[in-house]
């Protein structure tokens, strides 16, 4: 009897471990459009309505927990916000004067062909956030049926959030800008030099703007925005989307590396907008191009964006 129990226990453990390893090997080895990936997407399609319902049902609980945390931070944030408002007001006056000449320059050089106007924003609610420290992703309640496609940029009121990594009928997964698979072509607000913005190694909550010429000015507190399509370097993201603020800078081998803190509170996302693009439009063509690029071992289609960043200039 005892032997039988021991044998059964060992058999169950061995079976489950082998099954896990088989799944792991098969999943990791197959292409993003492979069978297991399809099963996963189908499963997400099935649970999307449940996720949506559960999200709505659990929102009061989440808000309650969030309220405690928000109250604790409110006081320090208020002082910071007042200072920032004062600074922004001064900047606004200066920016308004520059705005007119900026528009003229843009139309002169035909750089506005990929502006936000080319996109159709789709408002979505964040239904789940990946709790794992290895991934920075969220799931939203809008999918293919709303025109959302892989590689569509995602923003909220504070700025750029990330891009769509996978999409199903009524939901999509969004890679946040702090995900290791992300890379965004960006520039410092006052400078015309562009660089590649990626998550900072060793600090997954912060970003690093790399390959900025050492002569380019970079001051702490300055804003970093998407550079959009500049000359021959095309980007998935429209120009001028706010990403973050400079916290520090360093210089090495003729290039400047700038540490950037994201403006958006990525820990507490609720409403976001997906910048979808119509079929045949330039953004849509770029998304297709990025998605068709060879992906690495990463499971998400998002790694295509990183390649797009380097190859297309994303």
């Amino acid at each position, binding site marked *: 009897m005892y032997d039988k129990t021991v044998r059964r226990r060992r058999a*169950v453990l061995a079976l*489950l*471990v082998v099954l*896990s390893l088989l799944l792991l090997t098969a999943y990791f080895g197959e292409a993003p459009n492979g069978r297991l990936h399809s099963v*996963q*997407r189908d499963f997400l399609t099935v*649970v999307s309505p449940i*996720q949506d319902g559960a999200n709505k049902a659990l929102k009061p609980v989440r808000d309650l927990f969030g309220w405690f945390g928000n109250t604790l931070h409110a006081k320090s944030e208020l002082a910071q916000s007042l200072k920032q408002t004062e600074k922004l007001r001064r900047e606004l006056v200066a920016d308004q004067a520059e705005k007119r000449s900026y528009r003229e320059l843009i139309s002169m050089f035909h750089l506005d062909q990929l502006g936000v106007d080319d996109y159709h924003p789709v408002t979505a609610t964040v239904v789940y956030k990946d*709790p794992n420290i290895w991934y920075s992703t969220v799931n939203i309640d809008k999918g293919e049926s709303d025109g959302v496609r892989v590689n569509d940029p995602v923003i909220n009121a504070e700025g750029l959030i990330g891009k769509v990594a996978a999409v199903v009928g009524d939901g999509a997964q969004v890679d946040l800008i702090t995900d290791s698979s992300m890379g965004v072509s960006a520039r410092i607000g006052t400078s015309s030099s562009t660089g590649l913005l990626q998550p900072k190694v*060793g600090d997954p909550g912060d970003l690093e703007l790399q390959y900025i010429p050492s002569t380019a000015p970079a001051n702490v507190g300055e804003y970093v925005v998407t550079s959009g399509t500049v000359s021959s370097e095309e980007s998935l993201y429209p120009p001028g989307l706010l990403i973050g603020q400079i916290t520090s800078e360093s210089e090495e081998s003729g290039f400047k590396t700038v540490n950037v803190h994201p403006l958006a509170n990525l820990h507490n996302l609720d409403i976001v907008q997906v910048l979808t693009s119509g079929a045949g439009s330039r953004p849509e063509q770029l998304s297709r191009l990025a998605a068709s690029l060879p992906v690495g071992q990463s499971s998400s289609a998002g790694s295509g964006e990183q390649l797009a960043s380097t190859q297309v200039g994303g």
Partner: protein
Amino acid sequence: MTGGASSSLALRLGAFALFVVFFQIGVVSEVPVFGVNADVSSLLVAFVGLMCGSTVGAACGFAVGLLIDLTLLQTLGLTSLVFTLIGFWCGRLRELRDPQGALTPLLVGAGGSAVALVGYSLMEFMLGVDAPVSFELLREIVFGVIVNTIVALPMWFVTRRALEGALPDDPRRRRRRRSYTTGGLSPLTKP
């Protein structure tokens, strides 16, 4: 354990695990404490192992891990593997030591969380995921274990409450109970 009791346990466990997984990704992961999120799913697996034994613990770990991997579009099988081992080891702890101390859930919760976080990180490294290896990661793991230890006790009571009535009878405990109630083996009753 009879067939009826087994199916009752399976039903309760399935429903409770489903609730915990959705609660984890819908609520707990939205509320950072000390910059990290608690992981009640790994606590659930550890406590199910501790209450129900190694076989049920391993099976529960596999199922919960698979559900998480499927729902969050993660590498399939990764969380299942880590959680299977946690469930099994916690079940073996019960079968071999049968710890009864008041702090047992805290220690098991801390241990289970540490194994989950470190195991998951190791697996990711082995799979070649390009991720930062740094003090920050270590900090996240340490704080993750601390936060999970804080959450362990309430989670233990909730799990116990949810599965109460369907839990398997522990043979050791039954033997111990009988020895003191029948009087036959107690030294105090001997002439």
